[in-house]
C-alpha cells in the first residue's frame, strides 16, 4: 500500500438533478502506483471527469474511501483540500488555463506563491521548471504570444512547480494538432521516466497508448483495467526528435 499514490475504494458520487440523485460514479475502485503513467479512458458522460476532479481534490466523493499517499482525504474541508491540492497535485488542462495577464514565469510561480514560498525560492524553482520543459527563453512572454504547444508546456511546468506526487492531465492534447500533441505526450513520457506519477484523462486511444496502463470507465463504473506496453519507447532529450523541437505554429 505504501507504493499507492491514489487508492480508491468503492467511490460513489451523486449529483442532484431535479430531486433525483444521479450517480456519476457508482463504486469505483482502483489504485495508482508511484511512478506509474496511466490513462483514464471513457466516452463523455462516463464519469471520468468527475473521477479526475475527486482524485484532484477539486471535489469530494459522496461515499467510499479515497486515500492519497496513504492519507484518507475522503472528507476533508475545502481549506484542507486547497492546501493538499497545492502540495500534492499538479493539473494540466485541455484549454491550458494559463492566467492571461501573467508572464510564463509568473504563471509557473503561482502555485508556489499560494504555497507560501518566498519570492527568490519561487523564482529559482519556476525557472528550473521552465528549463525542464525547454521554455527558459520564454520566461517573460505572456501566454497570448506563445503557441498552443508552448502554452501547454508552460502549464506542465506550472503543474510540476510544487513537486507534486501526482500529475493530473485532463485531455492535455485536446486543443492541439496531432504533431504538437504527440510532443506533449513525449514530454509526459520523459517526466515519467524521471519518476513522475502521471494520470492522463482522455477519450483517445492514441493518447492512452502512450501510457503503460489504461482504466476504462463507463456509466460510473470501471469497465476494464489493462496493462500494456507503451506505444513507443520514450524519445527522451537524447533521442533525435526531442519533444522540445516540435511545432512552430
Amino acid at each position, binding site marked *: 500500500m*505504501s507504493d499507492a499514490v491514489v487508492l480508491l475504494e468503492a467511490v460513489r458520487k451523486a449529483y442532484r438533478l431535479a430531486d433525483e440523485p444521479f450517480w456519476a460514479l457508482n463504486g469505483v475502485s482502483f489504485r495508482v502506483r*508511484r*511512478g506509474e503513467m496511466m490513462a483514464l479512458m471513457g466516452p463523455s458522460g462516463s464519469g471520468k471527469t468527475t473521477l479526475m*476532479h475527486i482524485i*484532484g481534490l*477539486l*471535489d469530494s466523493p459522496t461515499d467510499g474511501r479515497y486515500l*492519497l*499517499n*496513504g*492519507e484518507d482525504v475522503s472528507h476533508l474541508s*475545502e*481549506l484542507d483540500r*486547497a*492546501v493538499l*491540492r*497545492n*502540495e*500534492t497535485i499538479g*493539473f494540466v*488542462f485541455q484549454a491550458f*488555463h494559463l*492566467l492571461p*495577464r*501573467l508572464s510564463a514565469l509568473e504563471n509557473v510561480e*503561482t*502555485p508556489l*506563491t*499560494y*504555497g*507560501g*514560498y*518566498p519570492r527568490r525560492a519561487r523564482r529559482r524553482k519556476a525557472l528550473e521548471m521552465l528549463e525542464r520543459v525547454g521554455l527558459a527563453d520564454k520566461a517573460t512572454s505572456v501566454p497570448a504570444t506563445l503557441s498552443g504547444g508552448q502554452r501547454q508546456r508552460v502549464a506542465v511546468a*506550472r503543474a*510540476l512547480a*510544487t*513537486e*507534486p*506526487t501526482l500529475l493530473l492531465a485532463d485531455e492535455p492534447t485536446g486543443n492541439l494538432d496531432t504533431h504538437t500533441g504527440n510532443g506533449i505526450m513525449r514530454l509526459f513520457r520523459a517526466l515519467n521516466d*524521471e*519518476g*513522475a*506519477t502521471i494520470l492522463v484523462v482522455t477519450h483517445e486511444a492514441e493518447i492512452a497508448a502512450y501510457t503503460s496502463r489504461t482504466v476504462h470507465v463507463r456509466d460510473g463504473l470501471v469497465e476494464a483495467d489493462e496493462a500494456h506496453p507503451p506505444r513507443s519507447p520514450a524519445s527522451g532529450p537524447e533521442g533525435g526528435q526531442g519533444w522540445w523541437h516540435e511545432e512552430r505554429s
Partner: protein
Amino acid sequence: MKSGPDLPAGARRAHRRRGSLDPLEIVVISWRSIRSNVLRSALTTLGVVIGVAAVVALTAAGNGVNASVTERITSLGSNLLTVTGGGPARGTRVRGAPRDTITLGDAQAIRALNDPRIAGIAPQVQSNLAVKFGTSASYATVLGTWPDFQAVRNTEVAAGSFFTGADDTDARRVAVVGYQVAQDLFGGQSALGQRIRIGNLDFDVVGVLPDKGDSGFFNPNSQILVPLNTFVRRLHRNSPTGDPTLSSVYVQGARASELTGLQQDLTTLLANRHGKTDPSEYDFEIRNQADQLATLNSVTGTLTLFLGSIAGISLLVGGIGIMNIMLVSVTERTREIGVRKALGAKPRDILAQFLLEATMLSVGGGVLGIGAGVGLGRIAGHALQVPSRVMPQSILIAFLFAACVGIFFGFYPAQRAARLDPVESLRYE
C-alpha cells in the same frame, strides 16, 4: 520528480513552510488586476472620487461660511453685551421691534458701577442726516457715542484721531467721518481739519475711518461719529422725560468667562432703574455676543452637516458602483478563480484578493477625491466669496468612510468569489 519518490508526502509537507499566501503577494495580484482594465477601474473609482470630493468641498465651504460669519461678528468687537430697548419676544410682539426705553441715564449708571469686569462702554444714538462740505452734499448715519466706541467696536482711525472724553464732556462739535463720507465730500483731498455741516451745525473733522467694507445690512463707511453729548444736546429730538433715549448700549467685558455674570448684574441694575420686577415686564434686552455666535455657529454647523450628508450619499452611490463592478468582475473572472483554486488558492486567498481590489479602488478614489475636493472647495469658496476652510477631520472622515465603503461593498462580491465551486468555475466559459 526529483525528490518525489523517496520521501513520504507527510514528511515532505512537514518541512515546508506550510504558510499562507504572503499578504504582499495579494496586494500584487489585486493591483495587477486593477491595472489590467484601466478604463473600468478609473470609472469605478470615479464614483468614490466624486463622493469624497463632494464631502471635502462642501464641508470646507460650510466651514468657510461659519468662519466668515464668526469673523464678521467678532470684528464688530469681542466679548460684547448689547443692551437694547424693547424686550424679550413674548406673546404676539415681535422681538426686536425697537422701543426707546434705554436712556443716557442707564448708560451713565452702568459706567458708575466702575465694575472691573467692564472693559468699555459705548452707548449709541443715531440719526440719518444730510451733510455738506462746500458744494458737495451727502447723507450719512450720524452716530453719537463715547470715546470707548473705538475699543468696544474695534474701530481703527486711518487718519487723525478719535474724539476724546473732554470733547464729549464739553459737547464739542468734532466728527470722525467714515471712508465713504470722506470720499463723497472731499474726493481726493484730505478731510482732516475741514469743517463740514451736519444738519444745521458746523463740525470739525478730526479723524477718518478706514475702509471697513459694506457688511450688507449696514455700511460702516457711511458713518459719521460724534461725541454723544454733542449729539444729544444739539442733534437729538428731546425725549419726553428729559433723559435722552439711546438706540443701544454696547458693554465690552474684560473676559469672556465673566460675560454671563456681568449680563445678569446689568439686567438686575436696569430692571431696578426701570422699576420692573418680573422678567416678563422687562422693557429692555441684553444680548450676549457669545450666545449669538453660538446660535449662528450651530446654524452654520447644521448647514455644514447637511451638505456633508448629501455628499455622503453620493459616496454611498460610489460604493454601490464598486459593488456592481466587482460582481461583474467576479462573474467575468470565474475561470481565473477556478484555475487559482486548482493551483491551491484557499478560499480566504480569493476573498482577500477581491476584497483588496475593491478597497484599493475605493481608497484610491478617496485619495484622488481629497485632492479634487480641496480644489473644488477653493473654487466654490471663491464663487461664494467665502474662505474655504478644509478641515483635517473631514479629510480623515471622508478617507476612512471611503475605505469602509470599499470593504463593505467589496465583501459580498469577494465572498461570492471565494465560495465558487472550483469544478463549476473551471468549466465556466
